[in-house]
């Protein structure tokens, strides 16, 4: 494969002034307490194809931030850098600065396993494991820690309560997760992410494979979870973004066009492209 010539240096080479290997405790006390995730000049490539162009964005803690924009605008790519899922894609690279509470997320020596414990993810299509409901929720916790059986049961119960699924499944925790409906499966996937004890939840179009009723229940859940987690949600659905999010970022062709409080961005966009998109004139 030929190395493309890029203006920025590849992953891990360019750094903002941040002491390497800064400990978590220091990182948890950021200078601006509101900001959870911040990026400066973040660019990304798949092979020689640049998909993100020098993004600057701050995502506030314990709020819901929606990424909107037409297909292929790079919003999912950006999401997948926050938990480094892009590591699994051959040829994916990033440059610039991306940090979570001061933790450098583009550091090539970063322990991605530990990062993904702190940053949960929910996918477009529900992807429960072909295991029991209990084992699905307990999957993540068992990866990272050793729990007493009672702690594990309590953790599974609280996670299922948090994703508003407990009432529907409490009598059949041992039955297969594949027997659940699509909406239930997606809430199970949220419970599964919550059980690990993350700070951030990434949601990649979590309702696009669901019917309207399931979508409504997931949206309500997102609004409730906002009190505990920083949530970043990618969505195609403008109404959804306006219903669930506090802040919205609009992307187009890999560039961040406009960002701001959701009600402001939807009612009074400053950019012409944003206005065309949110009013449905293209996209």
């Amino acid at each position, binding site marked *: 494969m030929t190395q493309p010539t890029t203006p920025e240096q590849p992953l891990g080479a360019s750094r903002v002034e941040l002491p390497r290997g800064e400990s978590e405790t220091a990182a948890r006390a950021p200078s601006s307490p509101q900001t959870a995730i911040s990026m400066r000049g973040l660019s990304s490539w798949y092979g020689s194809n640049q998909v993100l162009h020098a993004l600057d964005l701050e995502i506030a803690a314990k709020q819901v931030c929606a990424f909107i924009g037409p297909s292929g605008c790079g919003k999912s790519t950006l999401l997948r850098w926050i938990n480094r899922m892009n590591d699994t894609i051959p040829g994916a690279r990033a440059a610039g600065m991306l940090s979570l509470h001061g933790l450098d997320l583009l550091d090539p020596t970063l322990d991605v396993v530990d990062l993904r414990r702190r940053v949960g993810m929910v996918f477009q299509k529900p992807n429960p494991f072909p295991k029991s409901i209990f084992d699905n929720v307990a999957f993540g916790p068992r990866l*990272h820690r050793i729990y007493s059986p009672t702690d594990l049961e309590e953790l599974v119960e*609280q996670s299922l309560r948090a994703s508003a699924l407990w009432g529907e499944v409490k009598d059949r925790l041992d039955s297969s997760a594949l027997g659940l409906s699509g909406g239930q499966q997606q809430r199970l996937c949220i419970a599964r992410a919550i059980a690990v004890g993350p700070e951030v939840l990434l949601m990649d179009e979590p309702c696009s494979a669901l019917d309207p009723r399931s979508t409504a229940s997931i949206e309500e859940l997102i609004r409730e979870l906002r009190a505990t987690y920083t949530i970043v949600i990618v969505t195609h659905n403008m109404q959804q973004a306006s219903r669930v999010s506090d802040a919205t970022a609009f992307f187009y062709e890999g560039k961040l066009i406009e960002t701001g409080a959701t009600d402001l961005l939807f009612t009074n966009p400053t950019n012409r492209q944003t206005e065309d998109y949110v009013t449905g004139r293209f996209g």
Partner: protein
Amino acid sequence: MTSFAARSAGEIAQRGRPHSPLRRRWSEKTIRAILFLLTLLTVVTTVAIITVLATETYGFFTLAGHPEISLWGFFTGEEWSPLLGAEPMFGVLPLVCGTLLVTAIAGVFALPIGLLTAVYLSEYAAPRTRTILKAALEILAGVPTVVYGFFALTFITPYLLQPLSSGFGAYNAMSAGIAVGIMILPIVCSLSEDALRAVPQSLRDGAYALGSTKFDVSAKVVVPAGLSGVIAAFLLALTRAIGETMIVALAAGGLAQMTANPAAQVQTMTAYMVQIFLGDAPAAGIEYKSSYAVAFTLFLITFALTWTGAIVLKRYREEYE
């Protein structure tokens, strides 16, 4: 209530004793290394096969006291008689010819029948019929080749061939060829069927919408679209036919001769190797060593065929979707 549950889930999640990240990283590395070494073994196997065959073959060509053996003579000689007569002759062509004759008969028999059966299974058969026929094919595929050899010897020759013509002896290329054909039939059939079924339904629908009959669709759309897979199936089946040993050792006979007569007995490369390894040829002797040269020739032929198959599949594969 939900957010409270979420908060408490987060708190409970901290209760457990964390696994050591150092140990996790080390076990990950160890397992990766072990799996990589396992994978490397496949390469080692290939290297070992080539090394063993090459050194022993070199030993054959440079054996002291046998000036009559030469590389040129080996590959162009038309007489193979290592065990008979005062002056052994080592020209591999009769063995190659025997192998090709048996393989050709097997191919003429199995390739059309296999492809037509595949078309039937993929385009015509009802699901139930298909399941039953596939199961029958799977049994056929699992039958040990020595069984087909026995079948050739005790059924095909006496009950199918000898009633047709008195020219067929107890051992002949025809019955071995048919038996090898039966052996490769399931390979041709199931791999071709896979290739045909991989052709997207939209192509068939498109052809029907233009007013095609089922025959038009099968023969002019589906088979051409799946052709690369079908050819790869043919090549794989022929590779198996060339390397087949027990059938020819039982049914083809033991006389190495250059002939295209299917009623004649022939010796194939594999059958010669069986004769040597079964017999009491001394391990240092010229006959014994010659079997390695034959094995190397066989290896090179099958190697070339497998490569061709891989290239056909790669280069001519139609990508749908």
